[in-house]
């Protein structure tokens, strides 16, 4: 019984970690290559979830919704980069914080104006609503799909960044932007592409997590901070760091929430355990980040030499 619970939670942790990776991958590249703090990255995730939920409701098909979310956010990402963000690269971090904080306010208010203050319903596809049998453990089919998609996208990104020409440019840009430019890489175009890719990954995460979490205003901010924690732990600009960081944070957070209250009950009174457990679980990932930064002040896999 206990091992079954632990395996189930491990899978949940993997699933959460992979979704975090979708967000963190775009964020860490934007951060690493253009040295740009983008607080509105979470808004892209929210936008994807809203677009997808609305399109799913209108068409009745999850796949159509997914397609609408991906294409819609790719276009919005492109537009955002060309019209606004491009003008912020040369500015200091504080200006970027202010501008992208403003974008959060605008995005949240727009979502509220278009779709109202109530959360949108987004249901998983009918075929995936039941559980599947996984080596003797019954696990929700939809969550399993998320894991599979997450793994596939992670593999794709790994190949894209590690083994293609465009990926070589990306890595060159992350480790030394000026040098990459001097060698003739068009960093401007590269970054427009990266930003659009980041927006698509956000939309994918938003759409996939939509049926599990509520599609509502403010969903971006909660997960944004987690994504930042991930890329800081992993080392800014490093895709590998983002993957390791995502899985670490996903596992620690999920397992902490599921197991800590139970563990605490064995050493303290149930009353205290019920109160301290969830709080301690929430603190765990920040503790992890502070500890990583204490011993490795530039993260686990620093992209810059």
């Amino acid at each position: 019984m206990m091992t079954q619970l632990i395996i189930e939670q491990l899978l949940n942790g993997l699933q959460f970690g992979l979704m975090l990776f979708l967000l963190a991958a775009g964020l860490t590249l934007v951060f690493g290559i253009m040295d740009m703090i983008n607080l509105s990255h979470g808004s892209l995730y929210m936008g994807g979830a809203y677009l997808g939920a609305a399109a799913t409701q209108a068409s009745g098909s999850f796949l159509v919704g997914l397609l609408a979310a991906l294409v819609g956010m790719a276009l919005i990402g492109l537009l955002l980069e060309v019209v606004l963000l491009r003008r912020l690269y040369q500015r200091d971090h504080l200006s970027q914080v202010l501008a992208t904080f403003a974008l959060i306010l605008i995005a949240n208010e727009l979502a509220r104006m278009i779709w109202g203050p109530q959360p949108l319903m987004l249901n998983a596809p009918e075929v995936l609503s039941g559980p599947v049998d996984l080596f003797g453990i019954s696990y929700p089919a939809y969550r399993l799909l998320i894991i599979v998609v997450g793994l596939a996208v992670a593999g794709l990104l790994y190949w894209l960044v590690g083994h293609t020409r465009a990926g070589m440019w990306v890595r060159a840009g992350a480790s030394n932007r000026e040098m990459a430019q001097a060698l003739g890489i068009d960093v401007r175009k590269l970054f427009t592409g990266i930003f659009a890719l980041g927006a698509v990954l956000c939309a994918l995460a938003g759409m996939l997590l939509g049926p599990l979490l509520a599609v509502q205003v403010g969903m971006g901010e909660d997960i944004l901070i987690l994504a930042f924690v991930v890329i800081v732990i992993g080392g800014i600009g490093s895709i590998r760091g983002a993957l390791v960081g995502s899985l670490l944070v996903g596992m620690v957070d999920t397992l902490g929430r599921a197991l800590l209250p139970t563990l605490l009950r064995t050493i303290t009174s149930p009353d205290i355990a019920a109160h301290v457990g969830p709080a301690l679980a929430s603190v765990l990932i920040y503790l992890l980040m502070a500890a990583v930064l204490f011993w490795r002040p530039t993260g686990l896999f620093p992209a810059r030499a």
Partner: protein
Amino acid sequence: MMRASRSVLSGTLLGELALLSFAIILPWLLTALGEDYYIGFATRLLIYALAATSLNFVVGYGGMVAFGHAAFFGGGAYLVALLMTGGLLSAWANWPLTMLIVALLAWAIGAISLRTRGVYFIMITLAFAQMIYYSVISLKIAGGDDGLPLDQRSSLFPFDLGNDHILYWLALGLLAISLLLLKRLSHSRYGHALAGIRQNETRMEALGYPVQQLKLACFVIGAVLAALAGALLVNQNGMAGPGQLYWTQSGMLLVMVILGGVGHRYGGVLGAFVLLGLEEALAQVTEHSHLYIGLILLAVVLYAPRGLAGLFFKSR
């Protein structure tokens, strides 16, 4: 520069005195106009101005982009409320004790955080603030998610803080004193050393300055002033709430500082006044005030790179 300081009443000083006099008589004016609601609002402006000013000292003078100032601002509010629940009603004892505890906390957080720099410093201060947020909302004596209400305001014998006018004047006085103090500090040897560190840390280290300690001192001073603002806030609001510790509060204070003008003496004040003022004014005419605030902030970033203070004042 020399000429300006030699004339007894320079233009800036006259303006400052005029503004201060206006601020002093404002509560009477509002009461006479029958707009007592706005005394509370004005008090809130002053409190946030103090909090933003304290952060501006850390960011603008110390050159440290701290993203966890809510821990000290909200932490001050919570500590005052906790000590009052424990029976320590006198502000004379309660508030200094609160500031002392926050100073120790900031010293510990700062000492660890200053091992990192740049973006990593931003994130580690955020991490500590979030840890404090989650720890506090799990504490039963701190009221959990509901926060900690106050039965009455702190007592500040011989003054009656229950009177809204008195609380307003107290906030005004503390803001004015803090601004004066920070001005003196920035012109002192310490202030010049901080300016040197901001320009070139390595050079200052080579010159033999204890760079880490000087920065840590700046971080702690900012935190203590934020705690003082928190003490005022809990009295104004009548409660300490989890929202005051959450990262969005840190973000809000940072936005105020950047909006007003990083490193400008009045940057924090200006930013707090404009942001809260806009929020209040827009809320009267539209449901979607945040949309317009966002657009205004964007315009400021694009067209006023040094913040509002950079538009109005030439030097800092």
